[in-house]
Each structure stands twice: as C-alpha cells, then as structure tokens.
C-alpha cells in the first residue's frame, strides 16, 4: 500500500472509530513517519478531494463525510457522536460506516429540528428536502461553504 493511502486510511479509520479527527503527530506515529511527510500527503489527498485542511495547514477540517469540527449536523451511530459537513454527509456517515444511525439537524429556514433515522437500506420515510446552493462544478472551489 502506498504512503498516501496509508495516511488516508489512518485518518478515516480514526474518524470512524472515535468521531474525532486525529492529530498530525498521531497519524505520523501510526505510519512510522514524520509530521512533515504526513502534511505533504495531506496536500496530495486534498488534491484528490478526500481531505480538507484548516487555515493552519495541518488540522483536518474535513475527511468527507466526517467533519473535524462540530457542525449543525450531528450523527449518532452505536453511541458514538459524529459531525457531518453538510446534509449530504450527515446521511452518508451511516452509509460509510455500514451501520444504522440517527441524524440530528434542522430546517435551515424555520429551525425545526430534524431527527432522522437512517438504516442500512436508507432513511426512514420522510418529506424533508435537501437543497444545494452551489453547482456541482463549483463544489470544491470553497468546499467549506458548499
């Protein structure tokens, strides 16, 4: 397995196990490398659009569908709390984990809470709607805004 794939898997599996982003130091330790090499790999993974960093250039902001910081989209799976980057990612966390979960979010206009059960075959029947403001061609121009 190549180095970047090792880094990606360490990051994603840390999110999956704990709901939290790993530190750069812990990732380096897990792969037996140094922080500088990990940060270089982060940049390559960013170009593949599987990772997004904070402005400090080292903290993981997103490993989609997981968020490295708290958001309005929380997901509980097997007692672990995860944060999602957006509505799409909220539903995607149970899909990525292949586990049932509950999405806690809200209607962006009214503030009405959303508690949505998501099973292995999809969300429970619901008339809620997903709306994406940014066209697909522009999603990664500013992925945090998207």
């Amino acid at each position, binding site marked *: 397995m190549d180095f970047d794939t090792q880094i990606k898997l360490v990051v994603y599996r840390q999110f*999956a196990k704990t709901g939290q982003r790993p530190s750069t130091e812990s990732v380096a330790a897990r792969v037996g490398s140094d922080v500088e090499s990990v940060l270089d790999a982060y940049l390559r993974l960013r170009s*593949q659009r599987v990772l997004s960093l904070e402005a400090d250039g080292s903290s993981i902001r997103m490993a989609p569908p997981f968020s490295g910081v708290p958001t309005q989209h929380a997901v509980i799976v097997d007692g672990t709390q995860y944060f999602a980057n957006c*509505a799409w990612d909220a539903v995607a966390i149970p899909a990525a984990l292949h586990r049932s979960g509950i999405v806690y979010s*809200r*209607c962006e206009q009214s503030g009405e809470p959303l508690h949505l059960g998501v099973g292995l075959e999809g969300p429970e029947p619901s008339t809620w709607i*997903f*709306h994406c403001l940014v*066209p697909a*061609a522009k999603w990664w121009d500013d992925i945090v805004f998207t």
Partner: protein
Amino acid sequence: MLFFRSEEQVRDWCAAYDQPLRPLVTLDQLWGLATTWYSTRLQEDSRRPKPDEMREIFAGLGLEGDFWDPTSDSFG
C-alpha cells in the same frame, strides 16, 4: 448543502438570502448520493467519483442538467 422541512421553506430561505432556487432533492435521492459517494470510503481502494462517473450517478438518480454537471461552465 442543507435540510429543509418543505419546498416552501426552501423558497422562503432563498428569498430571505437573495439566493437562487436550485433543484430540490428528496431524501431517497440523497441516500443514493450518500451510498454511491461514500459506501466504500473506509476501504483501501476508495476514491471520489470521476466527472463521468458523477454524471452517471446523478443521471441514475434523476438529477440532470447543468447544475449537476461537474464540468459545466454555466455558472461562471
């Protein structure tokens, strides 16, 4: 990428923030997006779909048009 209780709430939100109304997506369609994008994300050989694959995924879910075209230049 946000949740709304109804189409009316989407329209009110767009009007309040002077934003364009985009295609509305049902939760069943959203589940299709979630699984096609992320069901293998924790695996070694996972990757983000390429543009042609994205178009195919969107079309398979009934999401078509320039808005869903990952290479469209219709939006500046």
